[in-house]
């Protein structure tokens, strides 16, 4: 049922009874006016007298009333949190373990500062504990109004667990030749690691990534809320890839909203240091493939406090000239909207944004491809592993002297679908470049009704406008 139509059906038109009651009320109003009564002696309604005594100024919205009960509850929550923080400081991992007992779905979070080499422990059940060691955290220093903030971190799970992304599980029965070389490398690294370690893989769903920054506006909490609400629903993005030691590289980016002038500092002079509190949340549905049993879903929150000097940016404006129209993209109505190249401390970030015109075909293909690979039990609770569909899986940039630059060994990149499923994102980190690239070539991979292993490439010519600061 169309939601729009359903809403109309649901609410319908006023009943005859209501219309009659309103008509009577209006008659009374007209009569009062004729008799010179400025306001009715009593409201012409059939509501209870008690309700009539609760008048308030009209015409202004009053959304944010807080009842006493809410205040008491908030105060109690603050006290509990304070007690929990003290207890956590004394014996953090034990507290997490105690809080995590039981099988009911819940959220787990470790909001301690994310530091290189600092272990983070998350206990899912009494039997399953995941421990993360963050091997590396990098934040780019490109932070201009309206631009992208890029970050990369490496998560190293220890103990006897391996994090397995649905996309990699889903791809396991597809021909390797259908995958881009970097994607294939990443999967091979995972396969090698699994064979060597004998560890148990767990599925982690990244279809609902979230990135938070504390005090992004640099102003009031209200300004923060408005900024976050307008920005993060559509622009956040996370991509992940495997390393040979079983760790996961998480590369993310989001666009700072236009108009957030306070974020860009005293633009032009640089060096306006601002503390950003970056929190990366993965929302995993843990699945033990051996048994098909689903473990409680939870949110793992990794947090990074970082001081950034803004603005420092070396980006390239590029006019997009798509020189081919691959059938795969045409089939799903995929249109490339934006390509951005930014030099970051870890290399050049190639960021592609595209939109999906034919969402119906996309969803249908997604359902088909997943059902062919995963059992219903496996599908349940994992969310939509949308990145197994038609997505750019590899990129290379071409320089004016004919040289080709491939993604670096580490942050090879990946791609995903935005929260509302209407945009495709892809991001690749390549070695930093001093020269302007002349074109970027993406390999698009994904199933089509005719050929599930179809891979096509699209070459995007760049016409650099100017090299900005």
């Amino acid at each position, binding site marked *: *049922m169309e*939601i*729009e*139509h*359903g*809403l*109309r*059906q*649901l*609410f*319908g*038109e*006023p*009943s*005859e*009874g*209501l*219309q009659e*009651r*309103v*008509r009577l*009320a*209006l008659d009374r*109003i*007209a009569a*009062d*006016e004729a008799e010179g009564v400025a*306001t*009715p002696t009593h*409201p*012409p*309604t*059939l*509501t209870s007298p008690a*309700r*009539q005594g*609760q*008048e*308030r100024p*009209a*015409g*202004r*919205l*009053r*959304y944010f*009333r807080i*009842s006493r*009960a809410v205040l008491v509850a908030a105060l109690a929550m603050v006290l509990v949190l304070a007690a929990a923080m003290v207890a956590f400081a004394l014996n953090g991992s034990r507290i997490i373990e105690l809080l995590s007992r039981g099988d009911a779905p819940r959220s787990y979070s470790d909001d301690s500062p994310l530091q290189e080499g600092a272990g983070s422990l998350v206990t899912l059940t009494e039997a399953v504990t995941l421990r993360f060691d963050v091997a590396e955290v990098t934040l780019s220093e490109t932070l201009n109004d309206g631009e992208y903030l890029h970050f990369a971190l490496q998560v190293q799970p220890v103990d006897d667990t391996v994090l397995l992304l649905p996309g990699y599980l889903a791809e396991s029965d597809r021909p390797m030749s259908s995958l881009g070389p970097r994607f294939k490398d990443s999967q091979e690294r995972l396969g090698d690691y699994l064979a060597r370690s004998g560890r148990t893989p767990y599925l982690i769903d990244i279809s609902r990534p979230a990135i938070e920054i504390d005090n992004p506006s640099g102003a009031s909490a209200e300004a923060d809320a*408005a900024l976050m*609400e*307008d920005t993060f*629903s*559509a622009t956040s993005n996370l991509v992940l890839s495997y390393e040979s030691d079983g760790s996961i590289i998480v590369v993310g980016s989001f666009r700072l909203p236009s108009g957030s002038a306070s974020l860009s500092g005293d633009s032009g002079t640089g060096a306006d240091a601002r503390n950003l509190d970056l929190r990366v949340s993965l929302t995993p549905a843990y699945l033990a493939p051996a048994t098909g049993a689903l473990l409680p879903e939870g949110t793992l929150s990794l947090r990074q406090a970082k001081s950034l000097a803004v603005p420092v940016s070396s980006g390239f404006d590029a006019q997009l000239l798509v020189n081919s129209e691959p059938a795969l993209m045409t089939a799903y109505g995929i249109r490339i909207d934006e390509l951005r190249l930014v030099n970051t401390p870890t290399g050049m970030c190639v960021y592609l944004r595209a939109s999906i015109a034919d969402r119906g075909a996309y969803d249908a293909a997604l359902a088909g491809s997943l059902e062919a690979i995963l059992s219903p039990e496996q599908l349940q609770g994992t969310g939509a592993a949308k990145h197994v569909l038609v997505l750019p899986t590899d990129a290379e940039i071409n320089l004016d002297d004919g040289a080709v630059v491939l993604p670096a060994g580490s942050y090879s990149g990946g791609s995903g679908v935005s*929260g*509302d*499923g209407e945009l495709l994102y892809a991001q690749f980190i390549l070695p930093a470049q001093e020269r302007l690239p002349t074109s970027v070539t993406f390999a698009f991979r994904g199933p089509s009704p005719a050929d599930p292993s179809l891979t096509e490439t699209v070459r995007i010519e760049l016409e650099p406008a100017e090299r900005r600061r």
Partner: protein
Amino acid sequence: MQASEFSERITALLPTLNRVALSQLRRWVEAQDAVLECVARAWEKREQLREPRFFNTWAIRILLNICHDIQRRERHEPLLFGTDENSDVREGRSATRALIEAPEPVDEEQLDRLREALFSLDERTRLILMLFYVEGYRVQEIGQLLEMRSGSVRSRLSRGRAELRRRMDSALKRIER
């Protein structure tokens, strides 16, 4: 504003007021009470309306405040006996069915699912969806009405739509199982 003009304008706005109240209050009877209260209060406060062209916005805001009052009172004075809210709404729908020229047959189960999904959203998102899809307000107009930025309205629309779809799909799967 004269009674005749007020009567004409509030009558024209009645379907909208009815739907706004229904989107905010769970029970049909209370929605009707809220609309009537709104008519009375709007007449009493008519001198506060400085710009007649904002009559609709002004009246809807009055209605929303009344709905909030009712919701707040309900929280403090819970019903002694439970009611089947869906049956209450079904009753209201059947009473008005004769007035609706339904373009396609009505599926009561689906409507109940939609209603359940809709009322699981927060009230502001619910209202935005209704104003946009049923009343045909533009994003900017909704922003002015609810004192929100257009971007916020847009993002709530997008999230609300996705959430509705997700919840309806999930309810359908439960039934199929």
